[in-house]
């Protein structure tokens, strides 16, 4: 039976079948061949997976991201950040990283962050003489912070399949996100010193305040969203709706970048994308149901605890597995299947679900950046007209930094658990 699942899974995957349908066919065929359970269970489990109000936060966050990118919030955010750090050595590049950090706190997705910040900053950096390779590499990598800094769609998906608290996981992502962003900035400063990159002209405080006033509505949103969650005004699910309504109101009424008639056009792409994402979730959970009903998580836990000596070794092995998987497929789908499958193993090793969740988010971030299949790479190709090889070559130094951060986060659980422990436990 395991053989049937594995063979079908990879065969259909490599045939280029949509992942959601591939999961469904794998489940259905295995059910029909190896059990006598009626296939009526397929729609039941699809329904059961979707019958959860938390998952609406996914379309809300995706739509909010679209509105902010197609409106002017993202651009104004870049202006604000640039006015403050532009005059340091390598200032424009630091501003790019900071803008990614900021936009990551607005958006739940990594490719969306690359689009929002990269489309403006990559050409700007290249024009300012930072070199194509560095400029593309930095923004493509820093954009992936979108999934580490809350809100984050992979985090919501992880909490859905593992039944843990979104508020806690969101909180746990902040320090690792800042760590990665900080490391990118440190690397930028090092290169700026080494290469003697110029500073842009400095900006007066008067100008800064004017730019800040222009961009204040965007700067306020992360404060409202995270503040609102932790002050008890709304739940993380409702926060998604609040940020959608807020960004629509700001772009329509204050910035007047989006007319009320444009709203459906702005939203449709994100809405369809989220439908597809939810469908993958539902299909994945249907496969998980099948695996669970055959007691597979239990057997896997037995197998792993018999051969793997400690939780640390297990975490390393899982990370390596995901780093390999992430080169050829979307790690989000792999996380959806494998996390519940490993849940019992985590329990036996005493690994915190939140700590493990952050590791998952980091390997997903990696997957966005590793060729041949990496969503951020594809986005960067679209933004710059470069080939996959050229874009891939530009990101190696940043991947090395990310790998270092992944090791730190794995072996020092406090990096992720400190903040939720302080504020939520």
């Amino acid at each position: 039976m395991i053989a049937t699942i594995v063979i079908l899974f990879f065969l259909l995957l490599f045939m280029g079948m949509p992942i959601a349908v591939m999961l469904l066919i794998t489940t259905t065929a295995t059910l029909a061949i190896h059990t006598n359970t009626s296939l009526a269970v397929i729609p039941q489990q699809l329904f059961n997976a979707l019958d959860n109000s938390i998952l609406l936060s996914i379309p809300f966050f995706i739509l909010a991201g679209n509105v902010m990118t197609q409106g002017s919030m993202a651009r104004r955010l870049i202006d604000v950040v640039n006015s403050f750090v532009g005059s340091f050595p390598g200032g424009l590049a630091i501003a790019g990283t900071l803008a990614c950090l900021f936009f990551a706190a607005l958006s739940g997705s990594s490719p969306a962050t690359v689009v929002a910040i990269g489309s403006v900053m990559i050409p700007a950096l290249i024009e300012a003489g930072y070199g194509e390779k560095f400029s593309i590499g930095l923004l493509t990598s820093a954009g992936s912070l979108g999934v580490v800094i809350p809100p984050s769609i992979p985090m919501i998906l992880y909490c859905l399949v593992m039944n843990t608290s979104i508020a806690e996981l969101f909180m746990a992502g902040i320090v690792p996100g800042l760590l990665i962003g900080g490391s990118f900035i440190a690397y930028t400063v090092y290169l700026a010193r080494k290469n003697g990159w110029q500073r842009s002209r400095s900006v007066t405080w008067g100008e800064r305040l004017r730019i800040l006033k222009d961009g204040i509505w965007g700067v306020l949103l992360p404060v409202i969203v995270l503040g609102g969650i932790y002050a008890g005004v709304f739940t993380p699910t409702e926060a998604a709706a609040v940020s959608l309504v807020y960004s629509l109101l700001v772009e329509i009424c204050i910035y007047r970048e989006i007319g009320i008639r444009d709203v459906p056009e702005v939203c449709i792409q994100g809405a369809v994308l989220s439908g597809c994402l939810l469908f993958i979730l539902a299909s994945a959970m249907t496969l998980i149901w099948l695996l669970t009903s055959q007691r597979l998580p239990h057997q896997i836990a037995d197998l792993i605890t018999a051969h793997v000596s400690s939780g640390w070794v297990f975490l390393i092995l899982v990370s390596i597995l995901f780093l390999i998987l992430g080169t050829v497929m979307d790690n989000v789908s792999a996380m959806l299947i494998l996390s519940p499958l490993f849940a019992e193993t985590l329990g036996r090793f005493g690994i915190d679900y939140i700590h493990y969740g952050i590791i998952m988010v980091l390997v997903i971030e990696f997957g966005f950046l590793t060729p041949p299949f990496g969503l951020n790479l594809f986005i960067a190709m679209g933004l710059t007209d470069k080939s996959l090889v050229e874009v891939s070559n530009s990101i190696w130094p940043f991947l090395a930094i990310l790998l270092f951060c992944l090791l730190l986060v794995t072996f020092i659980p406090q990096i992720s658990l400190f903040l939720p422990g302080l504020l939520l436990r």
Partner: protein
Amino acid sequence: MFRDAVKWMAGFLNRLEEWTLVFILLGLGLLSFVQVCCRYLLGFSFIWMEELNRYLGVLIAFLGAAIGVKYGTHFSMDLVYEKVSSNRFRHGLKTAVNVACAIMFVIVAYYGWIQAVKLRQFGVRTSVLLVPKYWAYLPIPFFSAIMSFRFFDLAGKHFQAMLKGQPFTRT
């Protein structure tokens, strides 16, 4: 004349499904926002909000996925289509993949329909809105049927292209 009417109708239905999706999502977002304001300011909340979110969530996933088939939004791993250069092979493989997907959704639509019929027969209602539970299931057979139709359509197109040996373009 008749053809024009059919074309217009198809275009209208296409836009109808997209607008439905967007307006349900925006409507739910707005309702959630109102709910937050009411609860925070007036200490009052809509008990039916959670249930409405859950059941419309099912609708959104299936409706969005159905539109996704039309636009090729569904994630897939297309490595093989980049590595192999034979047009006939690529069209042939796509035909097979789309036929398999179409059959899968025939199955989902059929069993989804059976499930809805059973729930109706047993008179199951939802816990808060107290409406028939089978309503919440109906999007599954309905949009699965649409997806199935679209996958068959795609399969047909690739099959014809394979016979004619047309060049393969990524969608």
